């Protein structure tokens, strides 16, 4: 049932401004909630990516470490590496976690108001290559590629409060670009192959690219989530209020607020079965609705 729901939501429900992701993330896959020791496969149909996460820990370990790989599909498939080089749009990250920051280690005694909490530091390496078009350049240089291999650092703190609130705050810093904001175009090239009498034979090729001024800049992101799981709904429904803040010297500062409603696993409310998020993006002036499906192994 869970597998069917996962496949259905991630591969078929694409509509205008409706995107799917398989974590607690919003439509842009942003979240401040990184669950402790959860191995998972997640995907996001907005950017056609799939992410594998592995974390290693033992019950009495204060520390956890892991590896996450994210690849974006190109022409229906996604390669993470080609030889020793990361393929474009591959993200490799190494999360390192510390448990029981303000909560009590269950070995020591009863928890206080904070039932459980943990901190994650994550170092990411993101490989990117973007196809651009500039009609002001010489004809054979109008189509060109820009590479951006960026290093991103993030720190997140999550806490379970009184058994009913799952909260998180995360801070991220790294190099970004404005590729997603540029105009999408399809560049068609027609080539004459030959002619005989009145017949002319041509071939046509097409390349998707973006047009406009390409800029790279450093960006700060702050994500905050506050999810309430009421006991009166048998701990099966979670209500998430969230805030997403970005700031950079190029784009300025932007804060958006949203709400999410999640259906939670009957065996544990930290596992998401399905959900929907709503956020108004002030910068783009659009309403974003995200569909969420969970799949853990």
């Amino acid at each position, binding site marked *: 049932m869970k597998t069917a729901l996962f496949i259905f939501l991630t591969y078929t429900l694409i509509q205008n401004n409706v995107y799917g992701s398989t974590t607690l993330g919003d439509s842009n896959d942003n979240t401040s909630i990184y669950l402790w*020791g959860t191995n998972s496969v997640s995907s996001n149909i907005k950017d056609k990516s799939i992410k594998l996460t592995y974390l290693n820990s*033992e019950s009495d370990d204060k520390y956890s470490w892991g590896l996450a790989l994210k690849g974006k599909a190109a022409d229906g498939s996604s390669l993470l590496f080609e030889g020793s080089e990361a393929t474009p749009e591959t993200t490799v990250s190494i999360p390192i976690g510390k*448990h029981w920051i303000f909560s009590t*280690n*269950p*070995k020591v005694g009863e*928890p206080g108001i904070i039932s459980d909490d943990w901190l994650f530091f994550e170092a990411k390496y993101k490989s990117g290559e973007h196809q651009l078009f500039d009609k002001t350049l010489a004809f054979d240089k109008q189509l060109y590629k820009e590479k951006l291999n960026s290093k991103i650092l993030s720190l997140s703190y999550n806490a379970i409060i009184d058994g009913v609130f799952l909260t998180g705050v995360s801070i991220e810093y790294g190099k970004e670009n404005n590729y997603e904001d540029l105009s999408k175009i399809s560049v068609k090239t027609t080539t004459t192959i030959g002619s005989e009498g009145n017949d002319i034979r041509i071939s046509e090729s097409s390349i998707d690219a973006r047009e406009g001024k390409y800029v790279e800049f450093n960006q700060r992101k702050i994500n905050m989530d506050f999810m309430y799981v009421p006991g009166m709904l048998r*701990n099966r429904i979670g209500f998430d209020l969230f805030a997403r803040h970005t700031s950079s010297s190029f784009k300025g500062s932007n804060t958006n607020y949203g709400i999410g409603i999640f259906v939670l696993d009957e*065996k544990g409310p930290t596992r998401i079965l399905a959900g929907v998020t709503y956020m108004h993006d002030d910068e783009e002036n659009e309403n974003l609705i995200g569909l969420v499906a969970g799949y853990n192994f």
Partner: protein
Amino acid sequence: MIYKLESTLTSYSYSVYLALEGNDISLSYDGNEKYKSSDLVDIGDSELDVFLRVNGMNGTDWSILILVTKPSDSTYKEEYKKSGEIESRGTIVLSEKFKLT
């Protein structure tokens, strides 16, 4: 007498503690819901002291299964089973004595 105890705790909690006969048990975690350990423990009075604490979200299920065998007697086998859920304040404590035959 020395017993072999194979413990399996199943829960979506990330914060668990198990002590058997007062000994801290280090459980390996599969990153999903299974915590496991295999230990040799000296149980003097034929009663196994089990102490379990599980912290997390209310509504989180937990279950523990301990298979008890004797290295000196291949025919001996007992099972200790218990399950429940975190009902309030994000924690449960189980403290019991399990009589061995």
